[in-house]
């Protein structure tokens, strides 16, 4: 009764889309208004932490090589770390600003893991293309939360961070198990499913 891998990507895409919407709204209204209701302040870090937790079963049940497993484990750990650090900051248990670095770190590590674990070229198949695109998006996108720490009142960096997550969601929604990309599909990739 296990879902196909592409369905798992789509479910995670929905999580990232929600995360992007929450952060975009926060960027629009500003942190002060966003934190006026306590539950709202906990919302996006909890969602991020939850996505990290859910990545563990994905690592256990859906990976078929060591490097693939390590990459999923790295995403799970960094998402949980970033979510937990933000929760700690919101709750007031953590005070040092350096904890905010967990978010850009999560994106950078996730991006690097995506790029390292993809063994094929961009046009091998759609999954390979998306791994490259996702990797570079996460890696370059990590600049936004990093700059948002330096300039916390800047709408540009906060919105850029939120939109990075929306782009990640779009890429995850585009994933298919075996499918061509721009008309290209390597004969080594296998038969397209649908």
């Amino acid at each position: 009764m296990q879902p196909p891998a592409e369905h798992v990507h789509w479910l995670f895409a929905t999580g990232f889309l929600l995360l992007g919407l929450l952060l975009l709204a926060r960027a629009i209204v500003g942190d002060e208004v966003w934190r006026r209701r306590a539950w709202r302040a906990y919302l996006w870090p909890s969602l991020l932490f939850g996505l990290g937790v859910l990545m563990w079963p994905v690592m256990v049940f859906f990976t078929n090589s060591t490097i693939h497993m390590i990459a999923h484990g790295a995403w799970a750990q960094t998402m949980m770390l970033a979510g937990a650090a933000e929760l700690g900051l919101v709750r007031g248990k953590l005070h040092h600003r350096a904890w905010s670095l967990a978010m850009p770190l999560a994106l950078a590590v996730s991006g690097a893991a995506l790029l390292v674990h993809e063994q094929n070229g961009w046009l091998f198949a759609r999954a390979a293309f998306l791994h490259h695109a996702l990797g570079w998006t996460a890696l370059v996108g990590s600049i936004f939360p990093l700059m948002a720490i330096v300039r916390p009142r800047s709408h540009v960096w906060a919105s850029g961070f939120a939109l990075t997550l929306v782009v990640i969601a779009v890429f995850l929604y585009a994933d298919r198990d075996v499918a061509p990309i721009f008309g290209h599909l390597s004969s080594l990739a296998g038969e397209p499913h649908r």
Partner: protein
Amino acid sequence: MSTQLVTERVRTRSRTAKARLVAALGPLTMLGGVAWGFLQPYRITLLHPHGQGFWWLLVEPPLLAVGAGIVFAMLVAPGLIEDLEAEEV
């Protein structure tokens, strides 16, 4: 008109724009999902359910995007707009 009044007006207008933007996020996401459904109707398996398995009927990306928009519009946006308006007063 005094400088203070102009500043207040500009601030109110920008806050109203913020409220409008927040209110638009959910519907825009839903609209995106609906447009996607029209562009790629084969990704909505409910339109051709015969012979589809459980997961193919449950996880349908355009509907998930619509769902995310609904969740945001119903659970997050109303309170946020209320708080924005309270900030104006």
